[in-house]
């Protein structure tokens, strides 16, 4: 089994930001990503998800360390005005 070590970057953000984030992916040459609808609470308050303005998404990207650094940097401008949380962890990609 030839497992490759990657970073998993998980982005929790307001649903309106999704298309922006995907533009960032395109700019950085990131092809693969996965989006799940979610709700939650953070410093911007409760986001109950029952209408679009209060919906969150959770976007996962498997990429190398470098790309994850650049991704984080590219997302930071949105951090001031939008509900946004970016976390990173280690994963092995098995296929």
């Amino acid at each position: 089994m030839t497992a490759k070590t990657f970073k998993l970057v998980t982005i929790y953000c307001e649903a309106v930001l999704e298309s922006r984030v995907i533009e960032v992916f395109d700019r950085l040459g990131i092809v693969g990503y996965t989006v799940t609808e979610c709700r939650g609470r953070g410093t911007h308050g409760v986001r109950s998800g029952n209408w679009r303005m209060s919906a969150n998404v959770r976007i996962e990207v498997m990429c190398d360390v470098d790309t994850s650094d650049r991704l984080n940097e590219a997302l930071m401008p949105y951090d001031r005005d939008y509900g946004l949380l970016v976390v990173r962890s280690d994963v092995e990609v098995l296929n």
Partner: protein
Amino acid sequence: MTFDPIVLFFLLGVVSGLVKSDLKIPAAIYEALSIYLLLAIGLKGGVELAKYPLLDLAGDAMIAVAAAMAIPLVGYPVLRFVGRMAQPDAASIAAHYGSVSVVTYSVAVAAIGQQAIDHDGYMAVFLALLEFPALLLGVVLARLGDATQNGKSGLASVDWGRLLHEVLAGKSIVLLIGGLIIGYVAGRMDAYAPMAPLFRDLFKGVLALFLLEMGLVAASRVAAFRTYGAFLVVFAVVMPVAAAAWGLVVAQWLGFTLGNAILLATLFASASYIAAPAAMRIAVPQANPALSIGASLGVTFPFNVFVGIPLYVWMAQRWIGH
């Protein structure tokens, strides 16, 4: 001043929310209900448009749209200088009030129907046209005189292409205009009847469900109320009444019938909660959405539904006559 019992569904939603009931309208159903409302209103408008000369309407519409721009243009300085709100917040809220609310319009249609006051379905054209210009104006207001950030002036830094796209390709415009065109064609071909059981007969029932959902959402905003301060609450009540009065003046000048005048007044008085929040979040991200949504959905919407519309009917009956 009588009321349509349909507004009780909004109350039911508010009460459910306040008692923390587990009642929830799933997000997918909310989406479906709003697609239905927009399409149904567009279709009905289109069917009626097919019976009228389009050109006459175009002139009236242009005037109404121009007149409606007064709302954000007056609202903005009030919010900014009387209310001492930050520039982006003042601009965003002004844009919400300059734009229109589909559900408030629908409740007004129901209310005048209840009192046997006729109106023309083509008023939906006004609904479609009034939605977006105020949003563009709101963005201009937010950026005007912006300290030149990174060497660009505020206005130049607006991504107008994206903004126009966000607004014009937004689902409310697409469905209203699309519905108008399809309804127009179907009306000309006498082919609306088979779609009417869904889009016409169920309208009021679906509106009831939508009001229930809006009540639930409004209840979840109640906590934010205290933080608005008294100023914003007063603004959210006075602004619609002033705008409605202005709408009646315009309607009288355009020679509208009583029913059409009431609907124009209601459109002026209403504040957007579908297109505006989404567009402002993208175009004026510094604005706090809790303020604008709290004011428009939490105060103005229920005010219009319970007090405003009956009041505008009464005002119109006095000014326009029967």
